C-alpha cells in the first residue's frame, strides 16, 4: 500500500534499497517458507493429510533451519560478528545461538504435537504453521539490532502463541488461556512499546548500536526519560519471560494451553524474551548497569522465591511446571544481573539446557494427560513407574535436571549462572538462588515420590500409549540432558562463544 503511494508521488531520486544479506536471515526465512509450504499443501491439496506429514515437514524445516544456523555460526566465527540489512539485525554468535535453540524447540515441539493433534483430533496444519511462524519471530527477536525489529519479532512470536494457546477449541481452559494471554500480552506490549518510544525520545534512535554509541558518547544531564523507557521495556520483556511480578499469566496460560504448545512456549518464548532482554540491557544499556542491575536483582529474587514457593503448593503438574518455569526465569535473571560475559553465557547455557528439560517434561505431561489433555493432577501420576517405567524414568531425569542434580544439564546451568553472580560479588543473590534450588527440589521430588508410589485405585488399567514421534522427542531431550550433564564442555564452549555483537 505504501509502495503504491510512494510511486504515486513520482519522486525523481530512486530509493536506494539497502543490501539484504539473505544468508543472515536464512534460519528464520526457512521457518517462514516452511510455514507457507504447509499452508499451501493444506489449502491446495484435495486430500487431507494426517498430522504426520505436517509434523514431518515441520521437523524437516526445523532441522534445515538448524543446519543453516550452524552454517552461520561457522561464518560468524570466521568473519566475526556484523550487522545486516541496514543494521536492523545483528549477525553474531548470540543470535545464532538462539536460532539453534529455537530450531531445536521447533523440532521437539513438532514431534510432540504430532501425536497430540492426532489424539485430540485437532486440525493439523495450522498448528505447525503457527509454530513455525512464531519461532521465526523468536529468531527475529534474538537477532534484532533495532528496537522496532525486536518489537515486531516479539509480536510475531506472541500473536502466534495467543492463537496456539487457544488451539484446543474443545477445552474451555484453552480458550481462557488464550484470552488471558492475549489481553495481558497486549497490555504489556503496549507498555513495552511506550518504553521504546521514550528510549527513542531519549536517544533519538531505536537502533541498539546507535543507542549504545549515543550513551557512550553523550553525558545526559538528566536521563529520566531514558530510565523511564528502560523501565517500561523491562516490564514488557519481563512479562514475556515471566519474571515476578509480571508472571501472573504464566500458570494460567501454561495450564490452559495445549500441552505441546506449553512446552514450546516455555522453551522458545522464554528464550526469545531473554534474548531480547540480554541484548537490550547488556548491549544497548550496558552503560546504565548501575541503574538496572539492582532492579534485576530484585526481580530475580522475587522470581526465584515466588516461583518456588508457589510451585510447592500446586497439585496440577502443568501448573507446577509453570511455576517452576518462573523460578527458572529467576536463574536466568541471575545471569543477567551479573551483567558480564560469563553471566550472558551462563544465561544462554541455562536457556538451552532448559529448552530440552522443559520440552521433555511437557512431553511426559502430554503423554500422561491422555485424551482430552486433562489428566494433569498429581494423582494421575500415581504409580506411573509401575505402569510405564520408561516414561517415569525420563520424567525423573527431567525433574532432577530441573532441580539441579549433578550429571544433568540443569546442574551445570545453575552452576554457570550462579558462578557468574559470584564472580560479580552478588553473593546474596547466589545464596538465594541456591536455596531456591533446595526448595525447588522439594516439589520436583514430590512428583517423583508419587510416580514411584503405588498406583491409584482403578487407574492401573489406563494405558499410556507412547507414540513414536513423542518417543523420539523424549529420547532427544533425555540424551541432551544427560550427555550435557556429563560432558558439558562443547555446549559451554558454544554458549561462551555466542557473544553479543558489542
Amino acid at each position, binding site marked *: 500500500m505504501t509502495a503504491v503511494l510512494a510511486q504515486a508521488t513520482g519522486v525523481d531520486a530512486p530509493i536506494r534499497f539497502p543490501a539484504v544479506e539473505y544468508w543472515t536471515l536464512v534460519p528464520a526465512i526457512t521457518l517462514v517458507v516452511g510455514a507457507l509450504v504447509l499452508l499451501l499443501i493444506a489449502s491446495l491439496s484435495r486430500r487431507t493429510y494426517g498430522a504426520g506429514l505436517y509434523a514431518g515437514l515441520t521437523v524437516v524445516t526445523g532441522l534445515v533451519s538448524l543446519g543453516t544456523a550452524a552454517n552461520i555460526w561457522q561464518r560468524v566465527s570466521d568473519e566475526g560478528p556484523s550487522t545486516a540489512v541496514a543494521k536492523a539485525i545483528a549477525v553474531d554468535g548470540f543470535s545464532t545461538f538462539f536460532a539453534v535453540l529455537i530450531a531445536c524447540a521447533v523440532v521437539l515441539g513438532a514431534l510432540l504435537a504430532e501425536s497430540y493433534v492426532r489424539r485430540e483430533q485437532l486440525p493439523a496444519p495450522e498448528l505447525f504453521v503457527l509454530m513455525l511462524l512464531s519461532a521465526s519471530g523468536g529468531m527475529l527477536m534474538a537477532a534484532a539490532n533495532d528496537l522496532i525489529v525486536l518489537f515486531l519479532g516479539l509480536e510475531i512470536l506472541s500473536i502466534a502463541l495467543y492463537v496456539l494457546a487457544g488451539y484446543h477449541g474443545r477445552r474451555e481452559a484453552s480458550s481462557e488461556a488464550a*484470552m*488471558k494471554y492475549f*489481553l*495481558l500480552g497486549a*497490555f*504489556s506490549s503496549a*507498555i513495552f512499546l511506550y518504553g521504546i518510544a521514550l528510549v527513542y525520545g531519549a536517544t533519538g534512535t531505536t537502533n541498539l548500536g546507535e543507542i549504545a554509541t549515543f550513551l557512550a558518547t553523550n553525558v545526559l544531564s*538528566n*536521563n*529520566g526519560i531514558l*530510565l*523511564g523507557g*528502560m*523501565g*517500561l521495556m*523491562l*516490564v514488557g520483556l*519481563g*512479562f514475556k519471560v515471566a519474571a515476578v*511480578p*509480571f508472571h*501472573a*499469566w504464566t*500458570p*494460567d496460560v501454561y495450564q490452559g494451553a495445549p500441552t505441546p504448545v506449553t512446552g514450546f512456549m516455555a522453551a522458545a518464548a522464554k528464550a526469545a524474551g531473554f534474548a531480547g532482554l540480554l541484548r537490550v540491557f547488556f548491549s544497548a544499556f550496558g552503560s546504565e548497569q548501575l*541503574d538496572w542491575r*539492582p*532492579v534485576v536483582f530484585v526481580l530475580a529474587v522475587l522470581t526465584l522465591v*515466588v516461583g518456588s*514457593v*508457589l*510451585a*510447592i*503448593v500446586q497439585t496440577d503438574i502443568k501448573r507446577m511446571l509453570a511455576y517452576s518455569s518462573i523460578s527458572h526465569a529467576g536463574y536466568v535473571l541471575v545471569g543477567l544481573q551479573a551483567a558480564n560475559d560469563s553471566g550472558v553465557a551462563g544465561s544462554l547455557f541455562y536457556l538451552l539446557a532448559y529448552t530440552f528439560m522443559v520440552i521433555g517434561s511437557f512431553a511426559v505431561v502430554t503423554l500422561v494427560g491422555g485424551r482430552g489433555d486433562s489428566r494433569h493432577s498429581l494423582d494421575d501420576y500415581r504409580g506411573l513407574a509401575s505402569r510405564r517405567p520408561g516414561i517415569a524414568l525420563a520424567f525423573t531425569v527431567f525433574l532432577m535436571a530441573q532441580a539441579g542434580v549433578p550429571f544433568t544439564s540443569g546442574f551445570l546451568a545453575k552452576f554457570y549462572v550462579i558462578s557468574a553472580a559470584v564472580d560479580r560479588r552478588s553473593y546474596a543473590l547466589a545464596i538465594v538462588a541456591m536455596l531456591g534450588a533446595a*526448595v525447588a527440589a*522439594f516439589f520436583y521430588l514430590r512428583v517423583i515420590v508419587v510416580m514411584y508410589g503405588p498406583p491409584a485405585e482403578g487407574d492401573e488399567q489406563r494405558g499410556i500409549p507412547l507414540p513414536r514421534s513423542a518417543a523420539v522427542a523424549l529420547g532427544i531431550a533425555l540424551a541432551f540432558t544427560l550427555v550435557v550433564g556429563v560432558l558439558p564442555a562443547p555446549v559451554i564452549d558454544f554458549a561462551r562463544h555466542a557473544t553479543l555483537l558489542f
Partner: protein
Amino acid sequence: MIDAAWLIPAFPLTGFVLLVLFGRRLGDPAAGWLATAMTGLSFLVTAGVFVDLLSMEHAARHATVDVFSWIPVGGLSVEVAFLIDPLSITMALFVTGVGALIHLYSVGYMHGDGRYPTFFVYLNLFVFSMLMLVLADNFLLSFLGWEGVGACSYLLISFWFTRETAASAGKKAFVTNRIGDFGFMIAMFLIFSAFGTLTYSGVLPHAEELTKGTATAIALLLFLGAAGKSAQLPLYVWLPDAMEGPTPVSALIHAATMVTAGVYLMVRVAPILELAPTAMTIIACVGAATALFAATIACAQNDIKRVLAYSTISQLGYMFLAVGSGAYVAAIFHMVTHAFFKALMFLGAGSVIHGLHDEQDMKRMGNLRKYMPITWVTFMIGWLAIAGVPPFAGFWSKDEILLGAWNKSPILWFVGLFTALLTAYYMTRQVRLVFYGDDRWQQAEHPAPAVADPELSHAEPVAPNGHGPSEHADPHESPPTMWIPLVVLAVLSVVGGVINLPFSHDTEHLLRWLEPVLGEEAIHLFDGNKIVLALIAIAASLIGLAIGWFAWRTADRPELEPEPLRRAWYIDPLYQAIIARPGQALADLSSWVDRNVVDGAVNGIAVAFREGGGQLRRLQTGYVRNYALGVAAGTVALLAWFYMRAG
C-alpha cells in the same frame, strides 16, 4: 623365661579364642578343663618368671617385653609391651593362681548350665584382661585390661540374663565402672600432656617434675578410676548387686582379682601419689570411710553373698586406707591375703549355695557343718583369717594396715580398728547362721517378711542351673573339683601371712621383694608401740567374735538388724533420686527439645513455605484484571526506582 612373659596372657587368650571357636563342640566339661588348663599354664609361666626374677640382682628385677606397636600416632606411641617387675609379677601370680583354682572350681560349679562353654569363654577372657592390666608397661594397655575386666564383669554378672536383676546388675557394674574409667582416662590425658608418654617407665621415674597441682589432679583422677573398679565410696554400689553373677565369678572377679585392680593401680603410681599429700589424705579417708560404711551394712544382710560383698568393699577400703597412708606394701599384702581368704569364703558360699540348690538366704540355712564338713572347715579358716585372729593370714596384713593408719592419723587408725571389730562380728554372724543352729532350709516355703522385698535380698528362688530350690533335698557336700580349691585356699589363708611377717626386716619378704618398685618403706615404728597396737587389734577382733558368737545363737534377732543397715543406708534409692531420675528427666527433656524445638524449627520452615505458598496463591485469583493490576503495580514500582535514580 622373662622373655617368654608374653606367654602369661597368651595362654588365657588362646583359651578364649579356642573356646569361642570350638567351645560349643567341646561342651561340658571339656570346655571347662581347657580353660582351667590354660589358666594353669599361665600360672606356671608366671611362676617361672617369678623364679627368674628371684634369681636376679635386687635392683635389676625389671624388664620390659615388647610385643608389637599398638597405637603409634605422632608423639604418642603406645606399645603392647609387658613390664615385668616384682609388683606386676606378684599380681600376676595371684591372679593366675587364684584364677586357676577358681576355674577348677567352676568346672564343677557350672556343671549342667546350658551355657557352660560361654562361661569359660568369659572367664578366660577375664583372666587375659586382668593379666594385661597388671603386666602392661603403660597406662593405656593397663586401661585396656582395666576396661576389659569391666566388660567381662558385665558379661559374667549378667550371665543368667533371663533374670532382670542379673541383667540390671551387669549394666550397673559396667556403667559405674565407666564413671571411674572416665577419671582414669582424664588422668591419662593429663599424664600425656605432662610427660608426652604413657609408659610407666617414662612417667614414674620423672614424677617429681610434676607440679603439685597436676600431681594431685592425676592422683585423684586415678583414684576415681580405682574407686570405680574397687568399689569405694561413692562408686561401690555395683558390687553388692554384682552378686547376681555365678558364685565363682564373685570369688574371682568381685573378691580376689578385679576389684583389687584399683589398689594395684594406686600402688603402681605411688611416685605420683607421694607428690600429692592432699590426694593421699583423701584416699585414706575415703578408704577408711568405705571400710566402716560397708562393714556396718554387712552386719545386717541376709544374703550369704551380699554379706561377703559388703565385706569385700570394706576390706578394699582397708587397702585404700593403707595406700592413702603410704603403706603400699601393706596394701599389696592385704590384697594378697584377702584374695586368699575372700576367694575361699566366696567359694565356700558357692559350695553352700550349690549344696542347698541355689538357696542364698542365710536365714534359711543353718547347721550345715553336719552336711558339708569340708566346706565348713575351710570356711571357718577363712572366717578366722578375715576376723584378724592370729596367726591366720588376715591378721598380719590387717595389722600392717592399722600400723600404717596409725602413722597417718590415730583417727584413721581408730576407724580401722572399729571396722575390724565389726568385721569379726558380722563374719561370726554369718558363720553362726550358716553352719550352726537349726536346719532352717526346710521352712523355706514361707520366707520371712524381712526378705520379702526383692530390693533387700536377691535371694529369690531362681534356677540358674536348671534345678530350682523348690525341690529341697538335703544339702550335700560338693564334688572334688569344688572342694579341692577350697582346701588349697584354706591352706593359703592359714599360712599366707608368712610372706611378710613383721618380726624383722628379713621376714618381711614382700617388703623386700617390692623394694625395687616401691622403694624403702617409710614406716618404722618402734617395736613396743607396734606390739601394743597389734594387741589392741587382736582384742578388737576377739570382742567382735565374741559378740557375734553369742548374739547369733538364734537366727531371729531383728533388733540387731536395724532397718537403715538392712537397706544399706538407703544409698540405692538416694542415687536413684539424685542421679538416675534427674538424668532420665534430662534425657526426656532433650528428646522433647529435639522433637519440638530443633526438628520443630526445621518442620516449621517447611510449614512456613507451604503457608507462604498458600497465601501467595491467593494472589493468583484467576481474574485477568488482577493480573494486569500486578503488572501495573510492578511498572509503577520500577518507574519509582528509576525516578529515584534519574538525575
